[in-house]
């Protein structure tokens, strides 16, 4: 009784109020807004300590100066001006940062589109074609199996498969499909996208599946009764109702891919530019303010993308 009440109280303090037990009476004496603050408090503190304060430091440091071996705490826009070096002078050629972001956005878009496509249909299958709850659970757990190993291993596992003398190439050469091994299978944009899709599709599956299982089945029956074809039901009923899941999954994938430099580095043979990689190179050279400036730029751009997406769907309302 006690525990279920706690859960209720967490879900909504109003529900518990007036239920008659001593605990609820106590809660009722405190103002509801105070209780809400109290409940949100721990998370807020964690957020403040491990996200907001460090972020403020990053922004501050991004405006500092530096030399070979230390940060100089004096205001300087050097981190930013160096980053955008040549962006006007080099026109019509693109400057380094513009090229880097174009590449990052391209990879991001490809990965997003592919994970969305695969993730949507996997979730669709789990939610509508698998009838039993047990099977649904079992199959979704099956999707998590790749996560039992580290993502570095999952990524590196592709290398012997896709290499010049790898399994795929030697197989294709043996069957006579090609004469020369395909070079673009590894250390290319193809391999980067492949590895990223492999790593992150699951982040798309979970929220979409979560949205889909909450769709009232009677709505689909109603659509059927009203004479909607399967495709019409999909477009007019299921997709709109699965939108929150789609947006949340997209946010997961986009934020991860925008900041990634390890996968892009390893699978791209360190030859493909990425926003995260610029930061890594700067940090490795101990140029922290320049790295911080790049981090702020990345944050702003990612934030803009997320804002645009939440314009399409009001996540707060949908949840």
């Amino acid at each position: 009784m006690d525990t279920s009440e706690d859960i209720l109280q967490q879900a909504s303090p109003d529900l518990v109020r007036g239920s008659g037990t001593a605990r609820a009476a106590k809660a009722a004496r405190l103002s509801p807004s105070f209780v809400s603050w109290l409940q949100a408090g721990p998370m807020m503190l964690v957020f403040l300590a491990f996200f907001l304060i460090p972020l403020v430091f990053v922004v501050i440091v991004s405006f500092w100066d530096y030399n070979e071996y230390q940060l100089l705490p004096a205001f300087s826009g050097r981190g930013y001006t160096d980053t955008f070096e040549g962006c006007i002078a080099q026109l019509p050629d693109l400057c380094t940062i513009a090229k880097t972001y174009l590449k990052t956005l391209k990879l991001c878009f490809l990965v997003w589109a592919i994970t969305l496509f695969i993730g949507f249909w996997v979730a669709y299958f789990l939610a509508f074609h698998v009838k039993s709850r047990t099977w649904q659970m079992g199959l979704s757990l099956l999707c998590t199996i790749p996560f039992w190993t580290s993502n570095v291993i999952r990524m590196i596992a592709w290398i012997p498969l896709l290499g010049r003398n790898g399994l795929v190439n030697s197989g294709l050469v043996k069957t006579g499909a090609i004469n020369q091994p395909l070079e673009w299978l590894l250390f290319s944009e193809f391999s980067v996208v492949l590895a990223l899709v492999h790593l992150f599709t699951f982040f798309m599956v979970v929220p979409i599946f979560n949205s889909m299982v909450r769709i009232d089945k009677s709505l689909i029956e109603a659509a059927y009764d009203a004479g909607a074809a399967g495709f019409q039901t999909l477009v007019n009923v299921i997709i709109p109702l699965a939108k929150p899941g789609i947006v949340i999954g997209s946010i997961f994938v986009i934020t991860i891919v925008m900041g990634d430099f390890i996968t892009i580095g390893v699978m791209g043979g360190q030859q493909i530019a990425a926003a995260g990689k610029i930061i890594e190179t700067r940090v490795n050279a101990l140029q922290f303010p320049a790295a911080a400036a790049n981090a702020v730029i990345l944050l702003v751009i990612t934030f803009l993308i997320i804002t645009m997406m939440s314009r399409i769907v009001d996540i707060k309302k949908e949840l």
Partner: protein
Amino acid sequence: MTETTKKTGVSRRTLLKSTAGLAGLAAGSGAITGFPYVMSAEPKVLRYLGTAVNEGDDISKQCLKDTGIKIEYITATTDDVTKRVMTQPNSFDVLDTEYFSLKKIVPSGNILALDSRKIKEFDNITPVFTKGQTPGGKKIGGQGTAPWKVLYLEGKDSKKFATSATEFVTLIPTVYNADTLGVRPDLIKRPISSWAELLNPEFKGKASILNIPSIGIMDAAMVVEASGKYKYADKGNMTKEEIDLTMKVMIEAKKAGQFRAFWKDFNESVNLMASGETVIQSMWSPAVTKVRSMGIACTFQPLKEGYRSWASGFCVSKGVSGAKLEWAYEFVNWFLAGYAGAYLNRQGYYSAVLSTAKAHMEPYEWAYWMEGKAAEKDIKAPDGSLLEKAGAVRDGGSYEDRMGGVACWNAVMDENDYMVRKWNEFIAA
């Protein structure tokens, strides 16, 4: 019987207490006071920050056996070692790093120079470090951050490098080598003799360089010079114009698809070469040996323009003093006393004190690794695995030939910031 049980009990307790002591040390509290028992049992522990080159379980075990000092390795990449020295100088005691990072580390004031008078073998350190020449008298190329330029400080707390010998040594030399291109002779099928071959279109999509900007650009400079495009005053300290010129050559090569991938650690370089993804790339000596021990032909190719060399050594964190500083000296002295030197020599690196290492090696091993003679017997790695069959000759030959052929040293340029920005441009191209 009772006695044995008792002993075990005590030793376990000692272990527990010393572990607690370790935790205390790690917390930075230094000596633990108020616990006389623990004080007496305080283990001699040194936290050793470095790249994997000098580290090995065999070395730390032997050190514990000989000196009672327990070495706790903190392993990181070259860049991360430097980063750690700058940002967390209290997180380590002994630092094992490369000479080229001194240009960053010394001005930060986070390290303590060691006193050469307390280093027993200091006078026996190879003249490569002290005079810039081989024991046989060959002059060594000094472009870049050559160790003899940054070996001494002007005073104990000075941040300036001294031009002549003082007793304040920035890094006590330990290990060094001469790097060049590794090639797959079975796939290239013709002799390679110049750095220019790295960018030869013949090896399109099959070449690689190191993904550390400051080192990668020097390999590139070797290529530029070898192909006769430009002659640098100092490849290790380029002007902005020289950086632009070098990067232009690199960008053209990258756009043309010359490089398969860039590598950053030992294993990556081994994998690229062993799998045939690359047939020509800058490499480290033990990595070549590793590829060969997999049964794959690989040559550490001597080139007419010479080698790019690197060297590393020991210093301590500025926070180290008292008994701990004495242990650090004891450890450094032990390291130069021969066991570790022989261990490094058997991997294909070179030890700083040749005489002590020689005493710890078999004559046939010394002849193979150091004198460039054909192996009389099978050559084995420190772990006992077979490296070369009898009759093999080391690539590049003797110590004199290899170190004498060094053209430049790993470096940090004055224009490092600009160079890093250009490197990002190169990656984005």
